[in-house]
């Protein structure tokens, strides 16, 4: 199968002499058609530099990358690529949404009825029909981001690069945008490469994750596997009526994490001790004092925070 995106041994050096440093250090990865990949890393990891190399905005010092077999930065490669930048608009503020989309379609060599059909198709999919005749500067941020995504997809790219697409959006707008992108992915079976500091975006939209740090790939695999051993941990939070009741402990099986006046927290490794058994034991210990139980997994935020902390 031809990969959608193939990055081979990319190195990007900034500066010269003593001040030279590698923002991207021998990075290689491949994306296949239909995949949805999160590109993660702490600030300064080299994500933006990598994205810019893949778009053809920057050229690598060493190595190369291809989009559907075409060298990045070439005319053909750019035709296959759709871009969404959360922090930078590609729309023309003084024009209407339809005019922007029409012009952007023209930039990507779409013409005539093909253009209009495509615009209306995407407008239907992303629910922006009512916005087409409005001027971009009058739109809310959530509306504008939907239009930005449509603008990035108007030329039917094989791969969509989305850099922080939900930044600044409220929770409803975020959920709506995620849902629409997911719908688009299913309908057009295209590839998505997403960078986002909002991990809920990542958890909803992506099944694979590439983690980079200091320009080096640290992880490339399923998102669920990123948690590693932490995936089997469960956190149990118990609210008690009587704050004086002591915490429960079962050696190596149930660990008490911390305690506030009326809240006790525990950690259980489900590979060693079944959660149902743990709940049963805790229930017996607290009896009538047990007011509420909350069970949660280790979040992706925590996993990444731990990885980022380890680097420093």
């Amino acid at each position: 199968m031809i990969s959608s995106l193939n990055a081979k041994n990319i190195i990007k050096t900034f500066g010269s002499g003593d001040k030279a440093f590698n923002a991207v250090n021998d990075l290689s990865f491949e994306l296949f058609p239909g995949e949805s990949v999160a590109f993660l890393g702490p600030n300064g990891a080299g994500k933006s530099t990598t994205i810019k190399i893949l778009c053809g905005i920057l050229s690598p010092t060493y190595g190369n990358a291809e989009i559907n077999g075409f060298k990045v930065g070439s005319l053909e490669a750019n035709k296959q690529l759709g871009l969404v930048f959360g922090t930078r608009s590609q729309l023309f503020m003084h024009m209407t949404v339809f005019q922007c989309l029409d012009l952007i379609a023209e930039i990507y060599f779409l013409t005539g009825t093909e253009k209009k059909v495509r615009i209306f198709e995407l407008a239907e999919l992303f629910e922006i029909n009512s916005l087409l005749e409005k001027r971009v500067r009058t739109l809310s941020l959530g509306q504008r981001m939907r239009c930005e995504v449509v603008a990035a997809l108007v030329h039917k790219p094989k791969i969509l690069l989305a850099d922080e697409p939900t930044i600044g959006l409220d929770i409803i707008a975020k959920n709506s945008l995620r849902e629409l992108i997911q719908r688009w992915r299913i309908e057009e079976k295209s590839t998505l490469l997403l960078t986002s500091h909002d991990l809920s975006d990542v958890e909803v939209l992506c099944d694979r994750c590439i983690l980079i740090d200091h320009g080096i790939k640290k992880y490339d695999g399923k998102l669920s596997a990123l948690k590693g051993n932490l995936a089997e941990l469960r956190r149990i939070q118990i609210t008690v009526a009587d704050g004086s009741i002591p915490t429960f402990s079962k050696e190596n099986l149930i660990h008490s994490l911390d305690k506030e006046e009326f809240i006790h927290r525990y950690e259980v490794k489900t590979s060693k001790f079944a959660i149902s058994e743990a709940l049963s034991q805790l229930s017996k210990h607290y009896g009538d004092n047990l007011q509420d139980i909350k069970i949660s997994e280790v979040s992706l935020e925590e996993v990444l925070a731990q990885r980022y902390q380890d680097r420093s």
Partner: protein
Amino acid sequence: MKTLRLIQLALKYHWDAHKSNPANLIAGVLGMVVNNIIVLWGLWAMLFDGKPDGQALTIYFLSLNAMITIAWGSICYFIGGVRSLGEYIEEGTLEPMLATPRNPLVLVGISQSITPALGDILQGLCNLVALFFLAPADMVFRCILFTFSSGVAFLGLFILTGSIPFFVRRGNALAQLLLECNLSLSFYPTGKIFTDKGRFLLFLTPAAVTGVLPMQAIENGHWSTAFIAVVGAMCFFGFSILIFNLGLKKYQTSSYVSARA
């Protein structure tokens, strides 16, 4: 053809946006027309009125003014984004334009259309009409012809100065300064002022191709001057494209991004 179609479409939509706010459109155009008429009258009254060769100087000045305002105004109206090239480089707005299958300069150009520039074009056209009554027809014809040459040279100037931020940190301020200097050297009747050393220095600046040489060709009608003016404008434009491409390569291969970061 595809590029022309893109520019045409962009112009159509820019005009639609201008039209949607008529108060702004009228204020912008009127403001520029008033500005240009005042300047025209002021310079004429100060420098040419009442002078022995006043009539000839008036014709010279009207031609110069028509040429410069139409050339400058046309670039600013039809592909006004090139004026902001330096700003786009400094602020990173150029970056997404590098990721499309189009020439980034075309995308820069179509990104903006400057409303008051219509006032420049209108005023320049009025000057041409006035010239029809004051000057010989062949001179008016040459004025129209060399407006194109001056326009190409001004486009080159915008691209050349706009490329400065590729090479100089925070170079946009310097770019604007050089643009203003050249506009003044083109706009004032410098072709009539400087002799010898001053004239030689003038020919080392872009004002030679934007104003001085075209005006000389308009005034004397010699084929050799016309040829030098046109070839000079085209060479200058070609040079500016070369510098832009060099700067872009530098931007893509290294340090600018790190300097900004």
